C-alpha cells in the first residue's frame, strides 16, 4: 500500500481541491477545506508529496480564513510527515508575511509544532546513530531559517497580534533548548512513547546538536525577551504585549528555575504605573505581574528561595489590604511563613543552628518540596527525609527501602502523630529525660550514632518533636555563625533525628564523602571556566571565603552551607551591599553559556552516583542537574551546600511555626504571636474528636461563656465583652445553634443583659459578613442568618414586651438593615388580620406600637422610608376602624407634614378615594346586592367592636373576600368599604383644605354608598377644617352634581355658629349666579335680614315640604344672637302673600306650607292665628287661601270660634260673596261653625242668604229653627224671614217677602253705608 496512492482517493482529493478552488461562498469553501484536511491527513507520504502543490495553491485564495485553513493543513501535514519540511518551511516563511494577522499567526502556530517535532526527531536520531540523513539535515536548516524569521518578528519594534504569537514561539524555543529539570533526562526507550522532549537527552553526545550552543542561544533569546520589558522599551508596548511577556517569562522561570535569577530582577523592577504613558491598560499588566510573581513565589525550586523576600515585598507593595493578605496567606502555605523570617529575624537567627544542623545532617536535602505544604511539620520532616533518601546517592538500596517505608508510614500518621504529641507532653518529665539521654549520646561523638538511631526509632515522632522543642530552650539567645560550629554536632544529633535514625553511621560519612567529591568538580570547573568563575568568587565576598575556610575543618558541606547562609541572609537582614540578588543575574549574564555546559559536565561527574541510585534516578538526576544549572553562574563550590542552606532557610521558620502551632493547638490562630523564644508548655491532653463532638464541645463552651456573662454583667466593661460574645456567636462553627443560644441569652432578660446592644453587635457582624462581597454562597448564608436572628429577636420582643415598650422600635431603628421578613412582621403588627390572627384585646395597642415603630423608621431610615410608608398607608385603609383610625392619625398628623413624603401620601389617599368611586362608575347597582352588602357590613362592624376575639378573624377574611368579589363584579362598594377607602383622604383634607375640592368632584359620580360615607364624614371634617379661604373657593364654585354635599357642608358650617359675612356673601352670590337652588340658602337663612328672607319666601315655599319645614324651623328659630328672623305671624302672612300665578308656584305647595305651619301648634298658637287672621282679613283683596286658613284655624283651635265669627261678620260686611272662591269657603266655615255662625248668616242680605241656603241646604233647617225663636225672629227683618219661609201666610208671606226684600234692600243699603263708613274709618285709621 505504501507509496501507491489509491486512485479513487486521489481523484476525490483532486476534485475536492478543485471545488475548494472554485467555490465562491466562503462558508461552503471552508467546509470543503475541512473535508479536504480530513482526507489528506489520512493519506500517506507519497500521495501527499504529489498533492502538496495543490494545497500550496489554495493559499493563493483571496479570503483570509481559507488561507488560514490552508496554512493549518500544511502545518499538520508537516508535523505528520517531517520529510516535507524543506518544502513546507519556505511556505510558512512566506505566510508569515501575510497581510491578514490571523493567517500569519497560524503560520507561527504551525511553525512551533513543526519545529518541536523536527528537533525531537533530529535529537533522537542523533542519539541512536552518529550520522544524520541529509533530508533531516536540510529540514533542520529550513527550520532554523523559519525560526530566525519568527525571531525577527518577535523582536522587531512595535506591537500586534502576530508578535504575540511570535513571542510565544520564542518562549517555546527557549524551553526546548534548555533542559527540563522535572522531565526525564533519559530519552524514551522506544521512539513512539509520548513523552515530553527534554534537551538533556542529548548529553553532549549528539553529532549535530550542541547542547551548549543551544543553551547559549536560549540564553541570548531570553536576554532579548527580558530587554523588551526593560525601561524604556517597555513603554512602547501595549498591555497585551506586556501581559504575554510577563506570562512567558514567568512560565520560563517556573519551568526552568535556572533562569530564576535572570528573570525575576526584571519582573521585580517592572513598575506598572510607569507604563501608563501610552494610556495602556495598567490593571491588566499589573494583575499579570502580580500573578507571575505569585506563581514564582510558589515555585519550590531552591534557586527561587533567595527571591522570596523581594517577591513578597513587591507583592505587598503592589496590592493593598486584603489582597496582600491573601497573597501572603498563599505564601505562608507555600513556604512556611517567610514573612516571619523577616519580621522575627532575631528569632530565626537563634534557630539557625538547629536548622543548620538539620541540614548538615540531611545535607543534600531533597530539593523538591511537597506539592501542597499545608500539612503539618511532621509531614514536612518525613517528607524531607523521603527526599533525602533519593538525594543520597550512596545509600544502599536496602536502607532506601526501609526509609521509604518509614516515610510513608510517618506521612500516613501525620494526624495521629500530632495529637499524640500532646499526650506525651502532658508531663515534660520524659521529654527532659530524653533530652538528657540524647545529650549523653551525642557527647560520645560519632560512635554513638548507632545507638542514637535506635533510640530515635524507638520513640514516636511526636515525642521526638517535643524533645527538639524542649531542647530549643537550651539554645543561647544569640548565635554567631561560627558559634554554631560547636553546637552543630550536638544539635545535629538531637534534631536531625529522623534522618539519623534511618541512616545510622553511614549517612554522615556519605554526606562527607559526597560533598568532598565536590571540590574537585569545582576545581575542574574552575579550570574550564577559569577567569569568570574566579571573578565571581571574589565578587561574592571575601569574608565569606574566610568563613568557608574556617568552616572547612568540619565538613566541606557545612562550610559551604555557612557561607551560603550568610549570603542568603544578608540581603534579607541587614542591607549590606554585598552580592545582592540583583547582581547575580548580571554575573550569570556574563557567562550565559554555563547552564548547559554545567549540566553535561555534572552528568559526567556524577554518573556513578546516578547509576547507583537508579531506583530514584529521576529525582536525583533532576536534583543534580538543577544544582548544576542553577548555580552554574556562581561559584561551583556553592552548588551543593547552597541548596541545602536555602532549604534550611525555608525550613527553619516553617519548623518553628509548626512547632508553635502544635502548641497553640489546631485552631491555627495566631501563629505569628506564638513565635516566642520560650515556648509555652502544652498541658491539655488532646483527644481526637469527631465533628459532632467538636460541635458539642464548642456549644458547651459557649453556653458556659454565656452563663458567665450573666454573672459578670455587673462588673462593667460590657462594651468590649458583648462585642466578644457577639463575635464568638457568629464566628464559631455550627453557628446556627450558637446563635440560637445567644438569642436565648439575649431574650431571657433583654433589658438586663443589654440585649439591645448585644443584638446589634451580632447583627452588625452578620451584616458585615453578608455585605462583604465575598462569594455568593457565604453572602447569602450570612444574610439568611442575619434575617433569622433579627426576626427571632423582633418577634420575641413583640410577643413578650408590653406594647408600650420601645425596645422593638429601637432595635429596628438601629439594626444595620431590615430584611423583608422583618418588614412583614411590622406590617402584620400594623395591619392585623393580614396574615396572622388578630389576637387579643391588646391588638389595638400593638397596632399603636407597630405604627409608632413605623413612624420612627420613616424618620430614621430614609432608604426604607417608602416601604414603611406603604405599611402605614396600608394600615390607614385597614378594614377595622380602630386600626384605621390609629394609622390615619399617624399618617395625617405625623407623616403628612413631612414634605418629602407628603406627596406620596396624598397620591395614595387620592388613589384610594378614586378607587372607591370609580368602581361604581356604572351607576346601576342591583339593589339587592347593595342591601346584602350593607347588611353584611353592618354585621361586620359590630363584631369588630364588640367581640373581636373569635369572630373577627373569620369575618375579616370574609370581608376581604367579599371586597374582592365586589371589586370583580364591578358593583359599588359598601358604605364601610367606601369609608375604609376614603377616611385617609378626609383626614388629609383637614390638613390641606384644597384637597377637599376633589371630594366635590368625586361626589357627583359616586354611588349611593359612597355618598353616604361621605356624608357621614363631612360634619366632622368640615367642623375640623372650619371655614378657610380654600373652602370658600370650593364653595363658590362647586361642580355640578355636588349640591347635596354642598348643602351638608354649609349646614355643618352654619351649625351652632354664626357664619361669616364672606360665607353668606359667597352663598348668596352662588345662589344669584350659578345655583338657583334656594336650598343652599337655607343654612344661612337665620342670618339673613328679614326683608331679604321675605323676598326669598316664595322660593322657600316651593321647596319640597320637608326642606321647607326645615327652613321654616330655621327661620323661626333664628340665630342665637339675633333671634328669630321672622315671627310665626309674619311667616303665615308671607305664605298668604304668595300668589301662585304671579310667583309661579303651585297652589298645592302653598297649601302644604300652610299645613306645615298649622302642624306646629306650639309655634302657631291660637293667638298668633287670631292675629294673622285679623291682619289678613284687612287685606284687599283677601288672600286666596284666607278662608282655607280660617277653616284650618277652626279645625285646629275650636276655641277660636268666637273670634272667627267676628271675622266672618267682618267678611259679610266686606261682601264676601263677591269673591266666589272665598264665598265657598265662607259657607263651609259657616256650616262648620253652626250654630254660632247663624247670627252671622242672618246678617247676610236676603239674596246672599238665599244663595247661601241654596248652596248649603244643610244649613237651612237649623237656621230656620234658629230664626224661629221668638226673640230672634222679632229682630229679623221681614225679608230675611221671607227667605227663611217664616212669614205667617203665604200671601202675606209673599208680601212680607217683598216688603222684607225691600227692607232688606234698605237694610242692605244701610249696611253698605256702614260698610262704607267702616271702610272709611279703616282707611282713616
Amino acid at each position, binding site marked *: 500500500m505504501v507509496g501507491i496512492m489509491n486512485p479513487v482517493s486521489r481523484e476525490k482529493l483532486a476534485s475536492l481541491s478543485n471545488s475548494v478552488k472554485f467555490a465562491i461562498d466562503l462558508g461552503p469553501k471552508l467546509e470543503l477545506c475541512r473535508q479536504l484536511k480530513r482526507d489528506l491527513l489520512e493519506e500517506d507520504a507519497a500521495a501527499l508529496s504529489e498533492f502538496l502543490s495543490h494545497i500550496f495553491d489554495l493559499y493563493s485564495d483571496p479570503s483570509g480564513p481559507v488561507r488560514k485553513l490552508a496554512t493549518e493543513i500544511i502545518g499538520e501535514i508537516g508535523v505528520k510527515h517531517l520529510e516535507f519540511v524543506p518544502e513546507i518551511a519556505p511556505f510558512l516563511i512566506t505566510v508569515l508575511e501575510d497581510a*491578514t*494577522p*490571523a493567517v500569519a*499567526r497560524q503560520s*507561527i*502556530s504551525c511553525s*512551533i*509544532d513543526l519545529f518541536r517535532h523536527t528537533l525531537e526527531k533530529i535529537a533522537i536520531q542523533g542519539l541512536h546513530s552518529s550520522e544524520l540523513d541529509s533530508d533531516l539535515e536540510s529540514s533542520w536548516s529550513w527550520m532554523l531559517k523559519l525560526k530566525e524569521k519568527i525571531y525577527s518578528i518577535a523582536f522587531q519594534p512595535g*506591537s*500586534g*497580534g*502576530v508578535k*504575540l*504569537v511570535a513571542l*510565544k*514561539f520564542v518562549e*517555546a524555543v527557549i524551553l526546548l533548548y534548555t533542559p527540563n529539570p522535572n522531565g526525564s533526562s533519559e530519552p524514551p526507550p522506544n521512539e513512539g512513547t509520548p513523552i515530553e522532549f527534554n534537551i538533556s537527552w542529548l548529553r553532549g553526545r549528539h553529532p549535530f546538536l550542541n547542547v551548549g550552543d543551544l543553551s547559549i542561544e536560549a540564553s541570548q533569546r531570553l536576554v532579548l525577551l527580558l530587554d523588551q520589558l526593560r525601561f524604556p522599551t517597555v513603554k512602547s508596548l*501595549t*498591555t*497585551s504585549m506586556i*501581559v*504575554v511577556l510577563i*506570562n512567558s517569562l514567568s*512560565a520560563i522561570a517556573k519551568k526552568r528555575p535556572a533562569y530564576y535569577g535572570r528573570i525575576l530582577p526584571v519582573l521585580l523592577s517592572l513598575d506598572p504605573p510607569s507604563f501608563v504613558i501610552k*494610556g*495602556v*491598560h495598567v*490593571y*491588566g499588566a499589573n*494583575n*499579570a505581574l502580580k*500573578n507571575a510573581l505569585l*506563581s514564582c513565589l510558589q515555585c519550590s525550586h531552591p534557586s527561587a528561595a533567595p527571591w522570596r523576600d523581594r517577591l513578597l515585598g513587591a507583592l505587598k507593595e503592589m496590592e493593598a489590604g486584603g489582597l496582600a493578605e491573601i497573597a501572603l496567606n498563599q505564601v505562608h502555605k507555600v513556604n512556611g511563613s517567610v514573612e516571619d523570617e523577616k519580621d522575627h529575624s532575631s528569632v530565626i537567627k537563634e534557630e539557625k543552628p538547629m536548622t543548620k544542623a538539620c541540614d548538615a545532617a540531611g545535607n543534600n536535602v531533597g530539593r523538591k518540596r511537597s506539592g501542597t505544604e499545608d500539612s503539618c511539620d511532621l509531614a514536612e520532616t518525613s517528607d524531607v527525609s523521603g527526599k533525602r533518601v533519593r538525594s543520597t546517592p550512596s545509600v544502599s538500596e536496602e536502607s532506601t527501602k526501609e526509609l521509604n517505608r518509614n516515610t510513608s508510614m510517618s506521612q500516613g500518621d501525620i494526624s495521629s502523630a500530632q495529637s499524640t504529641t500532646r499526650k506525651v507532653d502532658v508531663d515534660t518529665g520524659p521529654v527532659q529525660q530524653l533530652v538528657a539521654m540524647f545529650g549523653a549520646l551525642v557527647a560520645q561523638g560519632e560512635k554513638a550514632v548507632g545507638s542514637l538511631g535506635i533510640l530515635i526509632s524507638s520513640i514516636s515522632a511526636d515525642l521526638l518533636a517535643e524533645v527538639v522543642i524542649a531542647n530549643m530552650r537550651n539554645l543561647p539567645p544569640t548565635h554567631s555563625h561560627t558559634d554554631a560550629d560547636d553546637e552543630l554536632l550536638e544539635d545535629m544529633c538531637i534534631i536531625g533525628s529522623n534522618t539519623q535514625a534511618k541512616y545510622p553511621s553511614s549517612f554522615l560519612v556519605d554526606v562527607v564523602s559526597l560533598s568532598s567529591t565536590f571540590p574537585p568538580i569545582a576545581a575542574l570547573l574552575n579550570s574550564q571556566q577559569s577567569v569568570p568563575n574566579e571573578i565571581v568568587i571574589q565578587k561574592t565576598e571575601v569574608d565569606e571565603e574566610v568563613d568557608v575556610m574556617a568552616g572547612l575543618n568540619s565538613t566541606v558541606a557545612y562550610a559551604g552551607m555557612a557561607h551560603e547562609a550568610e549570603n542568603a541572609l544578608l540581603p534579607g537582614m541587614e542591607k549590606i551591599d554585598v552580592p545582592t540578588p540583583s547582581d547575580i543575574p548580571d554575573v550569570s549574564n556574563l557567562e550565559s553559556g554555563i547552564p548547559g555546559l554545567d549540566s553535561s559536565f555534572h552528568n559526567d561527574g556524577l554518573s556513578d552516583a546516578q547509576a547507583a541510585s537508579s531506583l530514584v534516578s529521576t529525582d536525583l538526576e533532576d536534583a543534580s542537574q538543577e544544582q548544576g544549572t542553577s548555580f552554574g553562574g556562581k561559584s561551583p563550590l556553592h552548588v551543593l551546600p547552597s541548596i541545602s542552606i536555602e532549604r534550611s532557610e525555608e525550613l527553619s521558620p516553617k519548623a518553628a511555626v509548626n512547632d508553635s502551632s502544635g502548641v497553640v493547638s489546631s485552631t491555627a490562630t495566631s501563629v505569628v504571636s506564638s513565635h516566642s523564644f520560650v515556648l509555652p508548655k502544652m498541658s491539655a491532653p488532646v483527644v481526637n474528636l469527631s465533628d459532632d463532638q467538636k460541635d458539642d464541645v464548642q456549644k458547651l463552651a459557649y453556653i458556659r461563656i454565656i452563663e458567665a456573662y450573666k454573672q459578670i454583667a455587673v462588673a462593667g466593661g460590657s462594651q468590649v465583652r458583648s462585642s466578644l460574645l457577639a463575635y464568638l456567636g457568629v464566628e464559631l*462553627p*455550627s*453557628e*446556627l445553634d450558637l446563635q440560637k443560644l445567644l438569642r436565648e441569652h439575649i431574650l431571657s432578660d433583654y433589658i438586663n443583659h443589654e440585649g439591645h446592644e448585644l443584638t446589634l453587635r451580632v447583627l452588625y457582624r452578620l451584616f458585615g*459578613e453578608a455585605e462583604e*462581597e465575598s*462569594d*455568593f*454562597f*457565604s*453572602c*447569602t*448564608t*450570612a*444574610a*439568611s*442568618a442575619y434575617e433569622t436572628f433579627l426576626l427571632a429577636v423582633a418577634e420575641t420582643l413583640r410577643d413578650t414586651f408590653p406594647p408600650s415598650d420601645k425596645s422593638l422600635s429601637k432595635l429596628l431603628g438601629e439594626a444595620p438593615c431590615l430584611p*423583608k*421578613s422583618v418588614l412583614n412582621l411590622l406590617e402584620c403588627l400594623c395591619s392585623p388580620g393580614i396574615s396572622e390572627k388578630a389576637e387579643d384585646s391588646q391588638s389595638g395597642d400593638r397596632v399603636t406600637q407597630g405604627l409608632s415603630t413605623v413612624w420612627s423608621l420613616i424618620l430614621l431610615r430614609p432608604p426604607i422610608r417608602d416601604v414603611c410608608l406603604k405599611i402605614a398607608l396600608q394600615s390607614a385603609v385597614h378594614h377595622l376602624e380602630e386600626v384605621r383610625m390609629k394609622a390615619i392619625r399617624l399618617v395625617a398628623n405625623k407623616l403628612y407634614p413631612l414634605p418629602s413624603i407628603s406627596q406620596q401620601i396624598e397620591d395614595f389617599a387620592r388613589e384610594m378615594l378614586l378607587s372607591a368611586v370609580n368602581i361604581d362608575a356604572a351607576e346601576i347597582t342591583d339593589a339587592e346586592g347593595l342591601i346584602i352588602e350593607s347588611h353584611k357590613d353592618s354585621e361586620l362592624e359590630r363584631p369588630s367592636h364588640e367581640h373581636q376575639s373569635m369572630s373577627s378573624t373569620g369575618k375579616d377574611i370574609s370581608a376581604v373576600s367579599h371586597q374582592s368579589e365586589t371589586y370583580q363584579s364591578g358593583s359599588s362598594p359598601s358604605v364601610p368599604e367606601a369609608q375604609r377607602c376614603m377616611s385617609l383622604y378626609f383626614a388629609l383634607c383637614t390638613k390641606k383644605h384644597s384637597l377637599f375640592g376633589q371630594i366635590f368632584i368625586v361626589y357627583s359620580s359616586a354611588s349611593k354608598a359612597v355618598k353616604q360615607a361621605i356624608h357621614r364624614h363631612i360634619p366632622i371634617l368640615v367642623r375640623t377644617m372650619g371655614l378657610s379661604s380654600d373652602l370658600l373657593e370650593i364653595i363658590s364654585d362647586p361642580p355640578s352634581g355636588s349640591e347635596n354635599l354642598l348643602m351638608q357642608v354649609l349646614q355643618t358650617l352654619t351649625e351652632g355658629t354664626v357664619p361669616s359675612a364672606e360665607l353668606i356673601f359667597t352663598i348668596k352670590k352662588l345662589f344669584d349666579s350659578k345655583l338657583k337652588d334656594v336650598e343652599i340658602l337655607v343654612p344661612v337663612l337665620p342670618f339673613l335680614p328679614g326683608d331679604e328672607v321675605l323676598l326669598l319666601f316664595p322660593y322657600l315655599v316651593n321647596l319640597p315640604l320637608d326642606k321647607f319645614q326645615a327652613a321654616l324651623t330655621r327661620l323661626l328659630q333664628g340665630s342665637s344672637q339675633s333671634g328669630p328672623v321672622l315671627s310665626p305671624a309674619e311667616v303665615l302672612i308671607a305664605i298668604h302673600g304668595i300668589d301662585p300665578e304671579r310667583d309661579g308656584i303651585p297652589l298645592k305647595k302653598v297649601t302644604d306650607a300652610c299645613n306645615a305651619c298649622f302642624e306646629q301648634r306650639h309655634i302657631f298658637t291660637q293667638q298668633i292665628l287670631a292675629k294673622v287672621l285679623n291682619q289678613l282679613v284687612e287685606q284687599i283683596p283677601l288672600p286666596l287661601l284666607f278662608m282655607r286658613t280660617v277653616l284650618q284655624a277652626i279645625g285646629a283651635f275650636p276655641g277660636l270660634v268666637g273670634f272667627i265669627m267676628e271675622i266672618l261678620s267682618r267678611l259679610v260686611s266686606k261682601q264676601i260673596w263677591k269673591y266666589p272662591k272665598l264665598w265657598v269657603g265662607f259657607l263651609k266655615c259657616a256650616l262648620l261653625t253652626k250654630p254660632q255662625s247663624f247670627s252671622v248668616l242672618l246678617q247676610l242680605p236676603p239674596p246672599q242668604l238665599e244663595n247661601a241656603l241654596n248652596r248649603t241646604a244643610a244649613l237651612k233647617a237649623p237656621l230656620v229653627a234658629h230664626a224661629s225663636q221668638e226673640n230672634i225672629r222679632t229682630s229679623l227683618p221681614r225679608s230675611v224671614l221671607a227667605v227663611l219661609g217664616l212669614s205667617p201666610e203665604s200671601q202675606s208671606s209673599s208680601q212680607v217677602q217683598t216688603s222684607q226684600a225691600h227692607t232688606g234692600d234698605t237694610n242692605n243699603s244701610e249696611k253698605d253705608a256702614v260698610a262704607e263708613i267702616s271702610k272709611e274709618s279703616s282707611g282713616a285709621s
Partner: protein
Amino acid sequence: MEAHSLLKKQGFDVSSYGTGTHVKLPGPSLREPNVYEFGTPYKHMFDDLRRKDPDLYKRNGILPMLKRNLSVKLAPQRWQDNAADGYFDIVFTFEEKVFDMVLEDLHNRDQVLLKSVLVINLEVKDNHEEAAVGARLALDLCEQIEAVESWEDSVDDILISFENKHRRKLLYSISFY
C-alpha cells in the same frame, strides 16, 4: 449563568463554568451549605432544595436561579475539568479570584495550539440584580470585540473605551491554548 443565558440568546457560541471544587449553594446556615458535585443536573438540585425547604430557598432566590439555569444548560461544569471543550476566543470571569484561577489553569495546560485567548474579568457583585447588569455589559463587550478583525491588535483600545463608557474597571490577560 446570567451572562451565559444572555449571550446564548444573542447567538454567541458560549459555555459557562465554575472554578471551585464543588457547586456550593447556600444552605440554612453558613456551615451547612448544599454541596453538589459538578455535573449534578440543575434539575436535581432544584428538586432537592425544594424538598428541603421551599420557603427558604425561594426567599433567598436560589430556586428561581436554578430554574433559570435549567433552561440554559443541563448541569454546572467545572472549568478545570473541561479543557477538552476546545478553545475559546474570550473567557469572561466575574470575580478576580476566578480570573486568577482561570489564568492559572490556562498557564498550567500544555500550550500547544498557540491560539491566543483573551481573559477578561468584569467584577460583578454576586447577586441577582448585579448579575443582570453584568451580563449586559459582557454582551456589549463581546459585540465590540466581535466587530474588529483581530482583537489582538486593538484590545487595549476596546477595553479602555469600554471602561470609560461604563465606568467599570476591567482586568484582562492573554493566554494561549
